[in-house]
């Protein structure tokens, strides 16, 4: 549960947070020992808890896969379909322009980031708790502004020792590729067009050439047990996932150990835990776009093999892409070693007073190696680098918790300090005479002295003090007030500290005498809260001072020397970005929890928003300055429903659905920095097209425009295809003169218009699960609606001008478009409904002779990514639509082929 600190007596929290099943777990006194900054007596904010039953039953790689679609307002999106792709996670959308939009991840009290989750084997997770609004995240102050996901791993418990073993075996297979011109059609079209044909006589489907059928296997074993005063649990997990692109492979070895012990007649409880992993990723995809662009467009008459000289045939007409098999010879390998250890002492000083001391140390090391052979990089290039992150965290918390008749008071005081140490080094060499040794012998390349070699160290620190008071009367009226002060080393003096208060209240109407008689109403509660949260995710260390760093090599006499200088503008006035959130919600359950509903409305405003302004040179030495000017609003409604139409001993149907409606508006990006008025340009591009003929110019697609939602499409309007003036058979995009000045000018502010947003307005997650005796079926559907996708892939691959260098789609000759101006012609609706997975499970009935040894045996069959219903014409509508970065909303030759995974799983408990 919640995080490290000690906890308060009563409710372990989360309680009815989870509308999906609404099991109110008010584990009593026991939870004293649970982690967490003490949960307040009654939950007054917006929190959702997902326990094991509610997690997705599909084949998962990352723990986040297990909750995708299960929580309203939580978006989990993979950056691509590579085996080791990182997830982009947003809780209630994007609230900052510069960073810190990832939620805080807390695993058993240890603070981490999204990558920390890789060190947890999904089956080790007891529960996820998602804190969404400021009154709940306030307790994490600066780091909780973008939501908090708390992961609690399973612990040993009192009872007989047990062992569990889970395994799954999967096959992942591509089922959808782009339909490019086949070799014969390519020849015919080139002849008809009168273009130079370089014909090597083959008929190669390059997309298939770089693909493979992938096998995946997962194994997990856990031992646990415990007695009256202590418990333990140890698990080992191993995953080996191949990808659908040649040579792609991810291996992850995880381990999780925890134990607790009560001492001195429960006066002291000691918790110790350790989790870690070693993950190795190998891929031949060093540049996602280049790989898939090349595979789609490479000349299909070329041979899928090396030539007699031992190299790959080049094709100079296509200099933006490479021979796809040459690309497959590149290797990028990451090895991550992560270890976290943590310990906690909880002193039950008296019935009402509890003191806890928590300490954690994490060490994370990522070694990246890359080799680009001479066939794709002029003289070859090898890179090897290591990044280390160490994190030390400690806190002290004192809790007072007491019932006075019908009053319940809970007070928490907390002090916390954290220091992170980031270090790293890397080196790059080039001029390889052989490709045989790759990055394992970087000395086979000549070292380049200055470039590509470096090291760094940063050690930001953070201190926080927090106080919280919760009060509850009669179990009906409760109020919680939190005040938290955070100080960070990243700010200049005078700006280090931020104060983030919050207050929230709840009224449990169902406990009122006048409602208690209503037999069909189990629970009805109204919550309301307002709070502030700080964010410094967009700020690196050392940004408030003009420190000098190596800035260039200059001749000094006949030698060369490294000169020092500043590399960016410092801003001594940087301060906390602040998010103000208002949240109100209603939780209800009816007919013995057959129907559970929860509705939340929130609105948040980010102020002092960090943004990298374009500033004038002079007075600044560089043309970018990070400053706290600007604001943004996010608001939304979240509805969750859980319905159990029937539930008998033999048969049960559960339907869960959650819908989130989200809205975002960029309010302002201007203000004064000292005497200088700073203002963001009216139109700032976020995502643009790349590839041949798309360098520079008017290829920006997704913009940030003040007064609009973040990430809007701002494009010229195409009013259809017209015949080209030069070639009577060719078509070009006809552009409308939107500003009516008689001139077609597609520059910003001219013939362009806002025509949709990249982030969905509505997100849907729903699950149907049906059980009949030992058999069960679960189907998960996720959907997103109200957004658009720019099909840059089709814009590029439909352009007949790309020939002969770049192959085109099979349907391109018929349309005969000789143009690739980016207009709204290829802007499509992005709505989709995805059948995320379908699982069929069988709890094998065991005879009593077997149950002596095997307590439970379950077999299941799962299909991941069953089907997608969409009108989008590209490979898949499930591209980045949540993280505001250079890929948002744009499908630009960088989409992994669409694949399906079939999994057979077995789970045994001894």
């Amino acid at each position, binding site marked *: 549960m919640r995080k490290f600190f000690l906890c308060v007596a009563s409710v372990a929290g989360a309680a009815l947070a989870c509308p999906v099943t609404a099991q109110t777990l008010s584990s009593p006194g026991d939870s004293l020992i649970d982690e967490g900054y003490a949960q307040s007596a009654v939950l007054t904010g917006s929190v959702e808890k997902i326990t094991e039953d509610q997690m997705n039953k599909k084949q998962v790689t990352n723990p986040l896969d297990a909750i995708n679609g299960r929580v309203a307002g939580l978006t989990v999106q993979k950056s691509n379909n590579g085996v080791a792709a990182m997830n982009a996670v947003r809780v209630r959308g994007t609230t900052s322009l510069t960073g810190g939009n990832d939620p805080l991840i807390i695993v058993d009290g240890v603070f981490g980031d999204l990558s920390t989750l890789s060190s947890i084997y999904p089956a080790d997770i007891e529960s996820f708790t998602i804190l969404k609004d400021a009154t709940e995240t306030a307790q994490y102050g600066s780091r909780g502004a973008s939501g908090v996901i708390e992961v609690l791993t399973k612990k040993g418990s009192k009872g007989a020792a047990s062992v569990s073993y889970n395994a799954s075996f999967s096959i992942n297979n591509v089922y959808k590729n782009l339909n490019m011109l086949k070799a014969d059609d390519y020849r015919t079209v080139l002849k008809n067009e009168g273009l130079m044909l370089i014909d090597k006589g083959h008929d190669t489907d390059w997309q298939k050439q770089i693909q493979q059928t992938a096998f995946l296997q997962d194994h997990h074993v856990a031992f646990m047990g415990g007695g009256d005063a202590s418990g333990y649990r140890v698990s080992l997990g191993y995953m080996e996932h191949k990808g659908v692109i040649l040579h792609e492979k991810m291996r992850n070895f995880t381990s999780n150990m925890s134990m607790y012990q009560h001492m001195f007649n429960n006066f002291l409880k000691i918790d110790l835990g350790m989790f870690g992993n070693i993950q190795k990723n190998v891929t031949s995809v060093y540049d996602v776009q280049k790989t898939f662009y090349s595979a789609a467009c490479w000349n299909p008459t070329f041979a899928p093999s090396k030539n007699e000289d031992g190299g790959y045939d*080049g094709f100079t007409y296509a200099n933006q892409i490479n021979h796809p098999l040459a690309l497959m010879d590149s290797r990028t390998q990451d090895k991550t070693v992560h270890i976290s250890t943590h310990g906690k002492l909880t002193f039950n000083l008296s019935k009402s007073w509890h003191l806890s001391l928590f300490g954690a140390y994490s060490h994370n090391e990522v070694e990246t190696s890359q080799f680009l052979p001479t066939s794709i990089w002029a003289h070859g290039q090898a890179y090897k680098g290591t990044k280390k992150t160490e994190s030390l965290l400690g806190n002290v918390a004192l809790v007072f918790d007491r019932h006075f008749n019908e009053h319940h008071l809970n007070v928490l005081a907390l002090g916390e300090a954290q220091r992170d140490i980031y270090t790293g080094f890397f080196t790059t060499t080039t001029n390889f005479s052989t490709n045989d040794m790759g990055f394992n012998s970087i000395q086979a390349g000549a070292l380049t002295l200055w470039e590509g070699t470096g090291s760094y160290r940063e050690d930001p620190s953070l201190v926080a003090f927090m106080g919280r008071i919760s009060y509850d009367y009669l179990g009906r009226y409760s109020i919680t007030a939190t005040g938290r002060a955070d100080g960070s080393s990243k700010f200049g003096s005078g700006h280090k500290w931020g104060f983030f208060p919050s207050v929230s209240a709840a009224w449990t109407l169902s406990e009122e005498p006048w409602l208690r008689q209503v037999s069909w109403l189990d629970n009805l509660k109204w919550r309301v809260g307002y709070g502030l949260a700080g964010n410094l995710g967009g700020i690196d260390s050392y940004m408030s001072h003009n420190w000098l760093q190596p800035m*260039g090599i200059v001749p000094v006499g006949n030698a060369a020397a490294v000169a020092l200088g500043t590399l960016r503008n410092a801003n001594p006035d940087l301060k906390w970005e602040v998010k103000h959130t208002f949240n109100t919600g209603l939780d209800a359950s009816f007919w013995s929890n057959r129907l559970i509903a929860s509705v939340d409305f929130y609105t948040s405003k980010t102020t002092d928003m960090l943004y990298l302004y374009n500033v004038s040179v002079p007075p600044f030495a560089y043309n970018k300055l990070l400053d706290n000017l600007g604001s943004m609003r996010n608001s939304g409604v979240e509805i969750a429903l859980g319905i159990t139409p029937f539930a008998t001993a033999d048969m049960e149907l559960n339907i869960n659905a959650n819908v989130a409606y989200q809205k975002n508006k960029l309010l302002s990006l201007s203000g004064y920095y000292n005497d200088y008025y700073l203002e963001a340009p009216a139109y700032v591009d976020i995502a643009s097209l790349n590839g041949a*003929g798309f360098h520079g110019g008017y290829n920006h697609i997704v913009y940030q425009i003040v007064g609009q939602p973040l990430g809007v499409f701002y494009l010229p309007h195409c009013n259809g295809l017209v015949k080209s003036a030069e070639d009577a058979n060719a078509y070009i995009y006809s552009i409308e003169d939107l500003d009516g000045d008689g001139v077609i000018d597609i520059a910003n502010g001219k013939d362009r218009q806002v025509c949709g947003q990249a982030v969905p307005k509505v997100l849907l997650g729903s699950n149907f699960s049906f059980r009949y005796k030992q058999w069960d079926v679960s189907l998960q559907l996720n959907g997103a609606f109200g957004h658009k996708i720019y099909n840059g892939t089709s814009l590029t691959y439909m352009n007949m001008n790309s020939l002969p260098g770049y192959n085109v789609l099979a349907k391109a000759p018929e349309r005969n478009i000789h143009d690739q101006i980016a207009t709204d012609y290829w802007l499509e609706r992005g709505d989709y409904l995805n059948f995320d997975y379908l699982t069929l499970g069988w709890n094998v009935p065991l005879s009593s002779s077997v149950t002596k040894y095997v307590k439970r045996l379950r077999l299941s069959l799962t299909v991941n990514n069953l089907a997608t219903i969409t009108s989008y014409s590209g490979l898949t509508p499930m591209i980045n639509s949540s993280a505001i970065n250079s890929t948002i909303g744009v499908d630009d030759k960088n989409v992994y082929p669409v694949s399906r995974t079939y999994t057979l799983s077995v789970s045994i408990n001894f």
Partner: protein
Amino acid sequence: MKTKNIMILCRLLCCCCVLGLAAACTDFLDEKPSDRVDGDINNINDLYLNAVAARYADVGGHANSQGLQGTGRGVYDLNTFTTDEAIVPTRGSDWYDGRLWQDLYQHKFAGLDPIGDTWNYLMKAIMGCNGSLEQIDRFGKTHPDARLEAYRAEVRGLRAMFYFYAIDLYGRVPLFTSSAPSVADLKLRNRSEAIKYVVDELQQAIPDLSEAHSNVRGEYYGRFTSPVACFLLAKIFLNSEVYCDDDWTDGTRPDGKNIKWTVGGNVMNSWEACQYYCGRITAAGYELEVVFENNFLVHNEASIENIFTIPMDKYLFQNQYCYLFRSRHYNHAAAMGLNGENGPCATLDALRIFGLKEGDIEGTGPDVDPRFVKTYYSGQVFDLNNKQVLLDDGTPLVYEPWAVACDVSSTPYEKTAGARMKKYEVDPNGTKDGNQSDNDIVLFRYADVLLMQCEAMLRNGQAGAEADFLLNSVRSRVGAPDRTATLENVLNERLLELAWEGWRRNDMIRFNVYGEEYWEHPRSSADIKGYTTVFPIPGEILSLSGSEQNPGY
């Protein structure tokens, strides 16, 4: 009872902890970086390195728009691809770049990113010089040293040079000498005022500058020395009709004969002043290299002709020279073991000035200037082992100089149109696709001085044998027949001699032909009004300083 005591104790402990923490906080939250340092300088060597030598990091560059030459989308491109010298044709899906290159060639300058980026680069370089001068002053207060005057002069000279480029490109600039200028300092000054400041700065710096030849390896290698300052002054005086004209839209310019300068204690007109500094450079021992190509060799540090260069060494420095790389055809580059981008090439105007007749693709006709084959790859090409370069389909690569146009997409010569850049010797060991080589980049050289002197004489009414001699000394070095020194011949000669060296825009403006109609360059109304002789100024500084944009933008 016992529990209570423990409780109190714990509470006390807790309070102590919190108080202790609070006290420790201030220290705990201070940044003490170990991978960077603060700016305190305590010895003269560090001062030289970080306040003087460091400024040369802004002379060359290795990223777009950085450096005076060698990189793309910067000073050089603005001075070259806006003229009748060279063009980057759109080649199908290559080199369209949002019409950038076509817009540059046709003088549609509004909104082009490289123009703002180049401003930022030059102003950053000036800011760096201001910071260095403040550093030298600070150091001088506690560490008096005889060398500081020379350091100060060197940095002032560099700053004046960056100002020269900024004034030449943008017309109006803010004149500020602080590294933290106030809003009032940011007011854009008239061009004449700005150029006079630059002249003053250079003249004041010269006495403290070394006389050394900066292009030669040694203590002053790559540095701003007295001949470099003289070259800049000569260049400014030669262009003084342009630079002293604060209204470039009225169709008139002041007469250079009436613009007076104080030079060496004497008052001179612009042409005399130009000749004076040309003479000083000659007196400093510069000569034409006997062999034209010597100036552009992989190891060209021994040139007696080069005055100011960007030192290049692929193993020592970062500076890049991408112009050969981006010009040559892929297969041509590959044949030399390097890479290419198949971009820039000569315009038809350039071919005609070089004396090629329509259809002559090898440039071997009788009237062709001998420098054509030294400056361009045209027709068939051969690799470093004299093996013919072939296309993918096995046919020979033939550059088609006459097939070039603003847009050659979908023509048979889409990839082969245009005569490509040669001039610099290929460094077969070049790294970074051939972007890093050892040829020092030539910024200023003596042949230019002779042509400037010749032109100044002609403009001063001194046509005759001496001017003819100056022109023909440049021509005869490459075996070109003598010509009479006329302004037209000088303008043409400047292209023949200085093609690919980044002077064409400056020359065309001075000769008032930049806004004329020429091949593939229609004369726009902005050209007619003279707007396009300067580039637009970035909006950020206009709004900050309350200054007006240059007319026409």
